[in-house]
Structure formats: structure tokens, C-alpha cells
């Protein structure tokens, strides 16, 4: 086999062709030389036949062994089985239309008939071997427990038939054959043929695959197996019956292979019978099976598709769903309409022009008919339904329709409309299938929406982080150091960004200017105003020399620039190192806490919040105070986030606790700040911070040397 498989296919076929040509040539020579059948002719036909048949058998079966693992789909079987029908039909036409040999001996025929019979016999042998091969590989594919055993028995029986027959005709026929042996032999042959028939019936057992076929191939298989059944029977009779056309030709030209060939044709008959019966039994379920397969396929595909929606747009989803709905329901056309604020848009269409649907939607009377349905609707006959008969004006082929509403939450956002050209063309199952689709559409769109949302959230989050970083940089990273004043500050927004502000700037005369402020509200809007405030502070401070003037000018700039309901509270301190004093002004902000030895004061000069009122009122009202300082004095500025801190039992921190803290602590600015923050944390006891919070501490004088 290895030796032969090295020979390429064309060369092999050419050799076979030469062999056949040789056969005909020699036959022709014999025809003209010999006047009657002789041993020489018998031997010749015997050996040449063996050679040709072996060549064919080898050709087909070696290929099968090589391609043992290739796919042989059920649809291809139907196709191949149809081809067998054509081959058989052709053979049978030969039987009918070729002149029957009334003479037993071939040499008594005219040359024309002689040659035709010779050719047709070779053709017949060829077809038969193809049949055997075809059945063999199919049965191997669909094998069951005993397939191999049965096939082996059949092979042995067929081989025996071939050898016995050939021997019979070649060696005994021409001799005086004992009548008794002949009778026994014929009986044996009949028994063998019958056994082969039964075995083939048994081996062709696994026919479940037929139920899985679609309706069309199934009907085709029904017809093909029926005609194959009839034709193989006719051919078998013709080859086995010793008076038959094929029989006589075979006896003459394939020296006694007729029972071998007959066995194959009989096997085909059994084979066809089994398949025919299997198709008949499974036929009523064909439509259902076809539909179910298609449904399962589409739903599976849809689910897979939904799992992959991450990369799909909503439109792609609608398009895919529409196409799959068409496949699953077997309708003529499907479209998906989408509702946006009272308008009807076409989400996707399958097998129908969007123009038609647009025309339909523009019909004021009927165009919005689907927008109000709350449940799936099946109209089995559109022409018989007065309500939507005019639907046919737009879709003449829509004799049946299904409409499935799509919901997103409680909102009706669209409809799947499936139409069929056949009245009563839809089954209730179709409604169920399309409804399942509708659920999946919602799922897919919801998935897609959630994904988009999370992407946006992520982007928002990263932008907030950037904002947070930027805002942190708006606050001084390091506070300046002075010989008499020590400063420390802490600020923490309740959200990523906030509206609290502190800063140290310089007045026109070079004196330090300490500011603590709070923009109303919190979050992003407050953060923007805070940035604006900082800009204004730094542009104005170098032009003024007092806190009051600074606040007035700030109000002047910011009033009108800000929302009516937004405002800023601000305190401003001018540190005067020459006179050991501070000047203080307040714009709506919590008071200044001053600790002088064991005495605590809250200082609250009057002043409106910034950007609440116009400048006249603001400047008339605002006051400024000078505070004389001595060694060890402590000043603390806070925003309302501090006094409004609540602990888990809802208690407020209050100004009182700020005062109490200061009375019981004596440290330089930085240490004091640390202690104060610790104090706050202890009070909060795990409760969350609801407002932005800022603390600014200033210590004066003698702490200078013990700072740390």
C-alpha cells in the first residue's frame, strides 16, 4: 500500500485507463479471432477483470484509509446519496435501452453489441465498487458496537462469492459441471446473498442523525432513498437473475462476478431501505427540529455576542439582534424600532428596506401602532385584522406579524417587529423565541450602558485625582518662617477637592498676610471658586496695606463674578513684627481664637461674607481690630468644618471645644496643630468628615527657641 500510495493520483488513473483500454483492445482482437467462447477468452476476462476490479477497489478504499479522520457531514451524505441515485439511474437506463442479449455467448453478438456490453459491464463494476466504498465509509462513520464484526462477515461472504463464482465460471463452467454441485452452489449463493442483505440491514442501524436534518434535506433524502431502494432492487434482479441483462454481460465480460456485484447492489437496497424507513419515521418532526436547531444556535450566538458587548456599540448590538431574530423565527423580514422622546427611529433592519419602514412610520394613523403595546403581540392574519389591515399598504408581503416590546427598566424604548409573507405563518413558539430575544437585547444594552458608565466613572475618578493634586498645590507646601511668629496649617477636603483656603502673602509694605477662607458649598464648584480666590488674593495683597482693605477689594472683584448663592468667608491677619501685634479683619468667617496666658478670647469684628452684597454695604460694615501680642500668645484660625465636626452620637465639636482645647494646651504652632488634630480625631471617633476642614495656628514669641 505504501508503495502504491507514492504513485500520484493522475498517474494511477492513467494506468487504470490504459488497463481498461488494453482490455477493450484485446477483447476486440478476441472477437475477430475467436468464433466462439473459449478458455483463452475466459482466462483473459478473469485476470483482466481481477486486475481492473482490484485497481478500483484499491483506488477507493486506500483513499478512505488515508482520510480516516476527515469530516463527513450529514448534508454531504445526502448529496452523495443523490449522486448514487444518478449512477443507478444511468445504469438502469442502460439496462432498458441497450438491446438485450438474446444470445448467451458473447461472440455470437454483433461487434457493436459486443463492445457496448463490454463497456457497460466495466462501468457497472466501477459503479458497484463505488457503492460498496460509499456504504463502507458511511457505516464506519456511524458505527455501533457490532459494525466491525458485521462488515467483516459481509466482506468475507462477498469475497467468497467473488472467488467461488469466478472459479465456477472459469474453471468449472466450461467443464462438465456436476449438476448437484451446481445446485448446492446456487443454494449456497442464495443463502449468502440473503445473509448479506440481513447483515446490511443490521449494520445500518444508527440513523439518529436523520432526525437532526433540516426539513429540506430530509425530504430530499426521503425521495432519494426511495428511488435508490427501487433502482437497486431492479438492478439486483437484473444482475442476479441469470437471464438479466447485467447478468449476461457480467458472465461474458467479467467472468462470473455477477453474484459479487449483485451482493453489493442488494446491500445498497438494504441500506436504502433502512434510511428510507428512518426518514419516514422522523419526517413529522422535521420542521420542529429545524426550528429548534436554528433557535438554539441563534440564542447561543446571541449570548456569546452579549458576553462580548464590551467592544460593541449599541447600534451593532441592535443590528446583530435583528439579524439573529430573523434567523431564529424564520420570518420574511425583521426590524427593530427605537423610541426617543416621541420620535420613532429605526434601530436595525433585516431583509427589508428602511425606506419602507420610514414611510410606514410617517403615517399618522398607524405608524405608531407598536409604540403602545405592553406585551408581545401575534397577528396571525393581517388581512383579516381590521385594525391593522392598512399595514399591508406599506408591507404588501406582511401577512403575519409579531411585535415584541422592548423595555429598559419600566421605559418602553423600542419594538422588534417580525413579519412573514405567509398568513398564519408564525407559531406561538415564535413569539416565545422572539420574547427571549427581547430580554437578551435589554441585557445586552444594559451591559453596554453599564460598561460605558464605568468607563466614564473611571475617567471622572482620574480627573478628580488630578484636580485634587492641583488643588493641593494651590495651598502653600511650606509656610514661611519668621523670627517672632511661628505658623502651622492643615487643610483637608471632605471630598476629593474642596473650598477651604489658607495662604500667606505679603502686603505692599512687606508685612506677612495670613488668610484662612471657606468657599460656600463643597466639591468641584467650591474648588473652582477657591482657585479664583487665590488668584485675586495674590493680585491684590501687594497693592494694599491692611486686612480690611484687602477684604473690601476682594469683595469688589468677586461680587458679581460668583453665583448669587455662593459666597466666601475669609479672615485676614497682618503680622506686625515691629510692633508685636496683629491686625485682624473678618468677612463672615468663624472668629479668631486668641489665648493670652490662661485667658481665652474669641475675637469677632463685624464683617459680611464676601460676594454676598455690593461693595458699599460691605465696606460700610466691615471692621478691623488691632491685637497686641506678648510672648507665648497663641492664635488659632479655623473654618466651620472644625466646629461642625460631629461624632458618631451626633454631638458637635463646637467653638467651645476649640476654646477648651486651647486653654489646656501650651505649645508652639506646629506641635499645637498636631495636638489639636489628634484631639479632633479622638472626638470624631471614626465618624466621617462631612465638610472641608482647615486649621491655622500661630504662636508668638518665646516658642521660637523650643520649636520642634
Amino acid at each position, binding site marked *: 500500500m505504501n508503495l502504491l500510495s507514492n504513485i500520484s493520483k493522475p498517474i494511477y488513473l492513467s494506468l487504470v485507463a490504459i488497463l481498461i483500454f488494453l482490455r477493450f483492445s484485446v477483447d476486440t482482437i478476441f472477437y475477430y479471432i475467436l468464433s466462439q467462447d473459449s478458455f483463452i477468452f475466459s482466462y483473459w476476462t478473469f485476470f483482466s477483470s481481477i486486475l481492473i476490479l482490484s485497481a478500483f477497489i484499491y483506488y477507493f478504499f486506500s483513499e478512505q484509509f488515508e482520510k480516516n479522520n476527515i469530516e463527513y457531514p450529514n448534508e454531504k451524505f445526502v448529496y452523495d446519496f443523490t449522486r448514487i441515485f444518478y449512477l443507478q439511474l444511468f445504469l438502469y437506463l442502460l439496462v432498458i435501452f441497450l438491446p438485450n442479449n438474446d444470445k448467451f455467448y458473447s461472440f455470437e453478438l454483433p461487434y457493436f453489441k459486443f463492445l457496448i456490453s463490454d463497456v457497460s459491464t466495466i462501468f457497472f463494476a466501477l459503479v458497484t465498487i463505488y457503492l460498496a466504498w460509499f456504504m463502507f465509509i458511511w457505516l464506519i462513520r456511524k458505527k455501533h458496537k457490532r459494525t466491525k464484526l458485521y462488515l467483516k462477515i459481509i466482506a468475507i461472504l462477498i469475497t467468497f462469492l467473488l472467488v467461488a463464482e469466478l472459479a465456477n465460471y472459469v474453471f468449472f463452467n466450461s467443464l462438465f459441471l456436476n449438476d448437484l454441485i451446481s445446485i448446492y452452489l446456487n443454494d449456497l449463493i442464495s443463502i449468502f446473498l440473503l445473509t448479506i442483505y440481513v447483515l446490511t440491514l443490521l449494520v445500518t442501524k444508527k440513523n439518529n442523525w436523520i432526525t437532526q436534518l433540516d426539513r429540506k434535506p430530509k425530504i430530499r433524502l426521503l425521495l432519494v432513498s426511495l428511488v435508490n431502494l427501487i433502482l437497486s432492487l431492479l438492478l439486483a434482479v437484473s444482475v442476479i437473475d441469470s437471464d438479466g441483462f447485467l447478468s449476461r454481460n457480467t458472465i461474458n465480460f467479467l467472468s462470473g462476478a455477477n453474484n459479487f456485484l449483485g451482493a453489493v447492489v442488494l446491500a445498497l437496497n438494504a441500506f436504502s431501505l433502512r434510511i428510507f424507513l428512518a426518514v419516514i419515521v422522523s419526517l413529522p418532526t422535521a420542521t420542529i427540529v429545524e426550528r429548534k436547531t436554528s433557535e438554539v444556535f441563534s440564542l447561543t450566538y446571541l449570548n456569546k455576542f452579549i458576553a462580548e458587548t464590551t467592544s460593541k456599540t449599541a447600534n451593532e448590538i441592535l443590528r446583530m439582534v435583528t439579524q439573529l431574530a430573523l434567523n431564529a423565527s424564520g420570518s420574511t423580514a425583521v426590524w427593530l424600532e427605537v423610541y426617543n422622546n416621541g420620535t420613532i427611529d429605526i434601530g436595525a433592519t433585516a431583509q427589508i428596506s428602511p425606506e419602507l419602514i420610514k414611510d410606514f412610520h410617517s403615517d399618522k394613523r398607524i405608524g405608531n401602532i407598536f409604540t403602545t403595546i405592553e406585551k408581545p403581540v401575534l397577528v396571525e392574519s393581517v388581512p383579516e385584522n381590521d385594525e391593522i389591515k392598512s399595514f399591508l399598504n406599506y408591507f404588501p408581503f406582511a401577512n403575519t406579524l409579531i411585535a415584541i416590546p422592548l423595555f429598559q427598566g419600566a421605559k418602553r424604548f423600542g419594538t422588534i417587529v417580525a413579519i412573514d409573507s405567509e398568513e398564519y405563518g408564525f407559531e406561538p413558539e415564535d413569539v416565545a423565541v422572539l420574547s427571549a430575544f427581547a430580554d437578551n437585547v435589554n441585557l445586552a444594552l444594559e451591559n453596554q450602558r453599564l460598561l460605558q458608565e464605568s468607563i466614564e466613572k473611571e475617567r471622572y475618578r482620574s480627573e478628580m485625582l488630578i484636580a485634587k493634586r492641583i488643588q493641593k498645590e494651590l495651598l502653600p507646601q511650606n509656610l514661611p518662617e519668621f523670627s517672632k511668629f511661628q505658623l502651622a496649617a492643615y487643610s483637608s477636603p471632605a471630598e476629593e477637592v474642596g473650598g477651604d483656603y489658607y495662604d500667606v502673602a505679603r502686603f505692599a509694605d512687606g508685612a506677612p498676610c495670613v488668610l484662612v477662607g*471657606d468657599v*460656600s*458649598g*463643597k*466639591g468641584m464648584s467650591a474648588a473652582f471658586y477657591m482657585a479664583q480666590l487665590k488668584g485675586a488674593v495674590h493680585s491684590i495683597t501687594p497693592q494694599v496695606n491692611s486686612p480690611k482693605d484687602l477684604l473690601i477689594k476682594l469683595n469688589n472683584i468677586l461680587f458679581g463674578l460668583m*453665583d*448669587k*448663592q*455662593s*459666597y466666601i*468667608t475669609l479672615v485676614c491677619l497682618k503680622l506686625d513684627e515691629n510692633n508685636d501685634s496683629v491686625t485682624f479683619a473678618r468677612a*463672615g*468667617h*468663624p*472668629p479668631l481664637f486668641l489665648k493670652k496666658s490662661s485667658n481665652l478670647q474669641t475675637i*469677632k469684628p*463685624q*464683617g*459680611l*461674607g464676601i460676594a*454676598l*452684597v455690593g461693595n458699599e*454695604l460691605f465696606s460700610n*460694615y466691615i471692621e478691623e481690630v488691632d491685637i497686641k501680642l506678648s510672648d507665648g500668645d497663641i492664635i488659632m484660625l479655623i473654618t*466651620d468644618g472644625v466646629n*461642625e465636626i460631629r461624632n458618631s452620637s451626633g454631638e458637635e465639636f463646637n467653638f467651645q471645644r476649640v476654646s477648651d482645647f486651647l486653654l489646656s494646651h501650651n505649645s508652639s504652632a506646629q506641635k499645637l496643630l498636631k495636638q489639636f488634630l489628634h484631639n479632633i480625631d479622638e472626638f470624631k471617633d471614626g465618624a466621617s468628615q*462631612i*465638610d472641608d476642614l482647615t486649621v491655622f495656628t500661630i504662636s508668638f514669641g518665646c516658642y521660637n527657641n523650643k520649636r520642634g
Partner: protein
Amino acid sequence: MNNSNFKIDKKNIDDFVILSISGYLDAHTAPLLEQELEKSVKDECYKIIVNFSDLDYISSAGLGVFMAFIEDVRQNGGDIKLTNMKEKVFAVFDLLGFPLLFDILNEENEAIAKFQGN
């Protein structure tokens, strides 16, 4: 804070609107009060009294709401008068300088009298 912590009761007496607010007025609940005031302005009820007797807390955003409407209301010959504030709530108004901008009174009646006196 969720909205359930803040409530507004509205009643009309003659041409006065009296809004009794209770609970927490902060950035989250401020829009409710804003809507109510907006409605009054739209209905051309410019004599507005806000009763704070049951209000426990007001934040800077809550204060801002009054600023948003006061100009409009006064231009139409009306006013927003605030009454019955708890001490703590008044302190917040006071800090910001609101007593200069608004009539803050002890009782609703005083506010009505003040409106009628005008």
C-alpha cells in the same frame, strides 16, 4: 444626610407664604428649599416668611439659598423674613453677617406685623 432629614411645610396666610423648615439644611437638601422659593417667586408670592423653629442645622450651602432669591423678591416689593431660629442656627447667620441683610425675628407674627407695617 439624605433628604428625609429635611422637611418643608408650606402654608399661605393672606398674601404671605410661610415655609416651616425642619431638620438639616445643607448642600444635599438645599435644592428642596430652592424649589419651594422658586415656586413662590413664580407664583408672585413675594412676602415670604421662613420659620426655622424645627431646623437643627444649616450649612453654608443652606445660607446661600436665601441669597439666591432675596434680590428678586425685594425688587418686587416683597421680602424674605426669617423667624424662630434656634440659637445655634442664628449663630451661623450671625457669623456671616446675615442679620444685616435679613430681618431675623422671634415669631411669625412679628414678621407678619413687619410686612404689614411696611
